[in-house]
């Protein structure tokens, strides 16, 4: 027994650490997604001068609606699980998973910290540091279209199918823009690994400005955010399924199947928030914070222990994520919806040329600087 451990120590350790990281990170993400369902309603309520849900209570304690996600979950589970008689049974069942699983997969490549030293071992604070992480994101997020389209098609409902077609057209179009906006970043940082890109953002420009993506690529930031919201199918781009106004691909879904679609949407918000933070706002980077502590531009030093630094970095990443989640909610509840022709026009006639221009300009600047 002991020999087996000794012989395979590295593999066992690697697997164990990966499992712990996976459980911790995904657990945090899923828990946060549950809170997001409440946050969406609370944020929208507050900005509309309402109170929002505050009635779900356990033994008379409501905690201002904190039990609402649990109550919603119980309700969803207890509801009738209805499937149309003529639906494609297998695909109808699989579609919600096609919507949720690719999104969850993407959290593997997102670095939520730098590294962490524990009893001599260095633990990367990222589930898998893939050299081509950015491409994985683009590739896997493309799979989410299957969830939309299979859901609409397997329902055997004409309106669901129309919604699915709208959804597929919208997602395919905006994926192009999404990919092209990220090209500029890769040109600047010279890597497609997200960890590398975050580390590169720790540099300073002109001695005091952090070299965050938003500073280097402000234009790409706006394009990316727009395209990401569109990928996420949320207002102002919710033409796929617009709550009570536009019936969409999951109109035949009920119970937990429907909840899975909705949950995927909230997980996707978190993903977009994390990607935005990672690519454009320095990820886990805190300005002027290095391995040994703060080093301010004026020369002032504030030495900090390793554990404190790691905690600060993870905390910074979490704070940035929460901020962008909130920001996405605010955007969703502020802006009115586009028309479908406006949506497609915006993509192909505005965002796509602009993202190409952005690549051109980035290339020109890089060439100029290299000379």
């Amino acid at each position, binding site marked *: 027994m002991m020999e087996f451990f000794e012989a395979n120590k590295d593999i066992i350790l690697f697997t164990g650490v990966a499992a712990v990281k996976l459980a911790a990170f995904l657990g945090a993400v899923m828990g946060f997604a549950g809170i997001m369902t409440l946050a969406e309603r609370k*944020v929208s309520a*507050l*900005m*509309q*001068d*309402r*109170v929002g849900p505050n009635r779900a209570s356990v033994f008379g304690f409501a905690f201002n609606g904190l039990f609402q996600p649990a109550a919603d979950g119980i309700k969803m589970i207890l509801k009738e699980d209805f499937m149309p008689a003529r639906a494609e049974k297998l695909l109808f069942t699989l579609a919600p998973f096609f919507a949720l699983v690719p999104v969850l997969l993407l959290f593997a490549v997102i670095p939520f910290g730098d590294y962490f030293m524990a009893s001599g071992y260095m633990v990367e604070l990222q589930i898998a540091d893939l050299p081509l992480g950015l491409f994985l994101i683009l590739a896997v997020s493309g799979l989410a279209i299957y969830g939309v389209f299979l859901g609409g098609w397997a329902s055997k409902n004409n309106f669901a199918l129309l919604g699915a077609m709208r959804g597929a057209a919208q997602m395919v179009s905006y994926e192009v823009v999404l990919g092209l906006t990220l090209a500029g970043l890769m040109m600047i940082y010279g890597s497609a690994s997200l960890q590398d890109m975050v580390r590169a953002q720790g540099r300073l420009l002109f001695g005091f400005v952090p070299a965050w993506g938003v500073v280097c690529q402000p234009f790409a930031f*706006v394009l990316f955010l727009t395209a990401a919201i569109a990928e996420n199918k949320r207002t102002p781009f919710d033409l796929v399924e617009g709550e009570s106004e536009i019936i969409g691909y999951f109109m035949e879904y009920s119970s937990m199947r429907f909840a899975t679609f909705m949950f995927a949407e909230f997980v996707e918000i978190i993903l977009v928030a994390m990607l935005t933070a990672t690519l454009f706002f320095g990820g886990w980077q805190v300005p002027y914070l290095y391995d040994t502590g703060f080093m301010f531009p004026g020369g002032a030093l504030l030495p900090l222990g390793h554990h404190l630094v790691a905690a600060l970095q993870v905390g910074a990443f979490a704070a940035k994520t929460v901020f962008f989640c909130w920001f996405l909610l*605010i*955007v969703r*509840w*502020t*802006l009115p919806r586009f028309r479908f022709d406006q949506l497609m026009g915006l993509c192909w006639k505005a965002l796509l040329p602009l993202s190409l221009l952005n690549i051109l300009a980035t290339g020109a600047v890089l060439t100029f600087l290299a000379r």
Partner: protein
Amino acid sequence: MISVKKVNNKPLNLLERIYLYEIARGIAVTTRHFFANLFNPKGLPTIQYPEQPVPLYGNARFRSRHRLKVRSDGSPKCVACFMCQTACPAYCIHIEAAEYQENSVEKYPAVFNIDLARCVMCGMCVEACPEDAIAMDTEEIPGGAADRTEFLMTKESLLRNRPGEPSLKGAANRLANEYLGSRGEQ
């Protein structure tokens, strides 16, 4: 003839066509509300209805939850004439009549139910009542119950007087007045 209104929409200027500035302005508005309400939730106009009573205007014509008036001997003024049930457009009143053995009024409601879940608060029952026995002046607004059965008002929950009652003002029933007089109650 369809009336046509010509609208002269102002063409958007460049800044507006770029959207971003306008979007930022919109987000500024919502964000301002968000934080104002987040840090000062007391400022929200929402009333937590069933727990937090709504201040009413005290208007004489205001219609609130029903009540059945009570005579000075504790019997309901209602004589179960079924006029309210007849007048009710929502079919929410259910009456079963019974006979007094002693009281010279002869008739009283053994069952008098109002299903507030059905009631449309139109006040027709009050208009129809020949005995001035039903009133909608409790200043309680029905609603906000977790169970349908909570909306069912029975005779017991409807019978009540306001301060200063019973008064004989508006009482039409000679038989009741005679009966109360014979018992020394007026």
